[in-house]
């Protein structure tokens, strides 16, 4: 087990380096120039040159990359080109909001997804199952920004139940206030995962129900519910661990959209702003953090899988 983890950890290093090279190149090749933010009409070409030089933008791209990498390895992510604050501090400020939103959404979608999937399988082809199937199709195909706008329109504007924006009401410091602000972003971020998980659980439960051990149990007189929750669930839940790893990318990218729409002060919102101002030290840092979350998430799901299914461990 330990060997597996160490091996996978080592594999992430070249992966992260490859990601950093590609993102660095992409940022540099994209049109736009951070110096634009500094230019005023009173500046002559020499002033503009001086600023470029001060920012180190005149060096060849590989030199810039190596300098960036060296600093990162020393733990220095640099300063934002726009607000001149250390990138690391800015990420640290934003990380809790994003992690909080993502983990709430993950837990919420697992619980709802599993319950709905299980019930749907238990009631296969009945009305409940059909409704769930329809809704989960919708859940997978609904664009999250549209869903977000609809929720805001309904719950904030029309029904006045929830605040439309931000994380806290100005001047209010209660947990209930925070929860109220988190409801809509969590729903938007979860809807797709709920649908995916419910569909997986449904189909794996249905196939489990056809297994011999279920028939034997039924023949032995065990109740259907007992079989379902005691034996089937344990087997059916296995694929969810894989989905967990797979759903992380959509969570990370979903966070960018969701946070922007709801004014949620997380990394996604920071990233969108950074991209629009060509603030490349910040863009790089956010890309690396997001990649790290993804890689670690996948690693975690692999490890969990081998814990619950020892056959995997043997394969390694």
């Amino acid at each position, binding site marked *: 087990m330990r060997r597996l983890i160490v091996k996978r950890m080592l594999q992430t290093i070249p992966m992260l380096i490859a990601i950093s090279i590609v993102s660095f190149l992409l940022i540099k090749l*994209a*049109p*736009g*120039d951070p110096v*634009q*933010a*500094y*230019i*005023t*009409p*009173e*500046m*002559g*070409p020499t002033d*503009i040159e*001086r*600023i470029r030089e*001060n920012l180190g933008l005149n060096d060849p791209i590989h030199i810039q990359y190596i300098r960036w990498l060296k600093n990162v390895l020393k733990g220095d992510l640099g*300063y934002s080109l*726009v*607000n*001149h*604050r250390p990138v690391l501090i*800015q990420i640290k*400020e*934003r990380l809790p*909001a994003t992690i909080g939103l993502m983990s709430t959404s993950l837990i919420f979608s697992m619980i709802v997804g599993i319950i709905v999937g299980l019930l749907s399988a238990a009631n296969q082809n009945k009305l409940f199952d059909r409704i769930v199937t329809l809704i989960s199709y919708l859940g997978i195909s609904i664009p999250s920004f549209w869903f977000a*706008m609809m929720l*805001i*329109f309904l719950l*904030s*504007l029309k029904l*006045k139940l929830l*605040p*439309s*924006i*931000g*994380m*806290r*009401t*100005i*001047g209010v410091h209660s947990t209930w206030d925070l929860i109220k602000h988190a409801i809509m972003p969590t729903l938007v971020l979860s809807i797709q995962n709920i649908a995916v998980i419910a569909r997986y659980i449904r189909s794996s439960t249905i196939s489990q129900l056809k297994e011999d051990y279920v028939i034997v149990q039924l023949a032995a007189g065990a109740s259907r519910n007992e079989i379902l929750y005691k034996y089937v669930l344990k087997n059916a839940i296995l694929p969810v661990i894989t989905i967990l790893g797979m759903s992380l990318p959509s969570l990370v990218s979903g966070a960018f959209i969701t946070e*922007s*729409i*709801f*004014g*949620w*002060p*997380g990394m996604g*919102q*920071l990233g*969108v*702003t950074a991209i629009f*101002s*060509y603030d490349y030290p910040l863009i790089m840092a956010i890309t690396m953090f997001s990649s790290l979350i993804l890689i670690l998430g996948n690693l975690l799901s692999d490890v969990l899988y081998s814990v619950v299914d020892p056959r995997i461990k043997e394969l390694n």
Partner: protein
Amino acid sequence: MMNKKWLVLVIALVMVISAACSNTSENQAPADTTNEATEGESVEKTKVDGGIFIFAINSDPNVMNPLYAGDRVTMTINNALFAPLYVTDAEETRFYLAESITPSEDFLSYTLKLKEGLKWHDGEPITADDIVFTVTSILDESQNSHLIGNFLVDGKPVEVNKIDDLTVEFKLPQISVPFMSKLGAIRPIPKHIFEGEEDLAKSDKNLEPIGSGPFKFKEFKSGEKLELERFEDYFGGRPNLDGVVFRVISDPNSANTALLNGELSARYITTDDIDKFSGNENFHVATFDEGMLNNMVFRLNNEALQNKDVRKAIAYAINKDEIIAGVYRSEEYAKKAYSVFVPTTQYYTEDVEKYEYNLDKAKELMEKAGYDNLSLRLAYTNSSKEQEAYGLIMQQQLSEIGIDLELIPMERGAFLEKFIDASTTDFDLAFNGYVMGLDPSGYSPLFLAGNPNNFMGYVNEELDPMWDKGVIETDPAKRAEIYEEIQRIIMDDMVVYPIAYPKSIVAIDDRFGGIEEARLVPITMFEDLSKLYLTE
């Protein structure tokens, strides 16, 4: 700050705040001081003490230090935190920290007197030392302040001397009439806080700024909000509101919803949103002149466009009335533009060739130039609905004189990169917008030969020396003559086609009063936030 000359380098349609419109009257009073069009019934309401005014900002402030504020968000915030010395517009000068400013007879030195008993937010007195420190820091090249140009005259620094605790003298290397308004826009920073800081932009002191404005720093949460609270000792009188808050909302649709939902107190809106707010009794919709000119730039490296007659033909073939009606509904939200200056700039004149729509004349000029058909490429920022609409209308109009206009919408960054380099040949025409401020000398970088802000590649040797003459002319009548002539020459050369002066439209929560006293102004929305109050 509004008369500050730096160009909100907005190139291009940056301002999706496609502001609104304008009165058709001759009254060109500085629109930034008047609230020209307001809607909504005003019922008698009682003023109450307290309340919080909530602004939306689309990103965190950059550096809460007026030496580095170059963007709308940070300038709006600094306007609450830091008071200017004085504000000059075409009508008058309003004094804030300064008691008076007096030029010497030869206009080579200026004496600035501060008001007595001024205090920083931490209670320390504001003195001449702070002014000298601020100006010295701006002039220090290693500090990279955006404002350095305000204190350079012809490349040479202005000398600053303390006379006594409340008096500072500025000595100019040569006459520069615009200096007085540039000086006024300065918002001093406290010496006792920043003295000895190596890099002012990166200083931690900017995170909890000590200023002199009506509201002082309370709390900042990145990506979420900046809270300011009332500064009891504000020299302009105790502010009415308990505080102002700036909430970060980057998505414009979400911001509109938040405003409708009462989670914001005011916001710039677009012409598309007007009906939503003006029909709502909870809002007060006001328009004011943003001091911006939307225009079309001719690239003079195109062979056909080097011919003045072709440029003039294009100008005559464009029907501004159709553009205003198609893009802004009516002149209520954007005034037709005839000069390269805006009406709020000193010495603005409409006594220029106006190029009123005249198809026959346009055809004649095309014939004279020897072109019966011509293909041109017009570039603009793809995210601007405003520019896209301009383009489609002009494409139609110019086809009447045999010009085949190809529209090239580009991503904003890609567009700017090409646009600011007048030698690129990816397109022949481009849409741009600029805000150059009160003083007409601020426009010179746009037209001087070889200047990086001259996006046309325009060279007129007769025109260039006139800008210098304008800067040193101290007689207002003669100055007016020079700048009027400049406008006539540029319009005759037709290197920039002025399209419209769009107006800013703001929707404000109707519970707030004192909007007239607070003055709606470009960029920062209000000039003096201490005057806003809540009603019941």
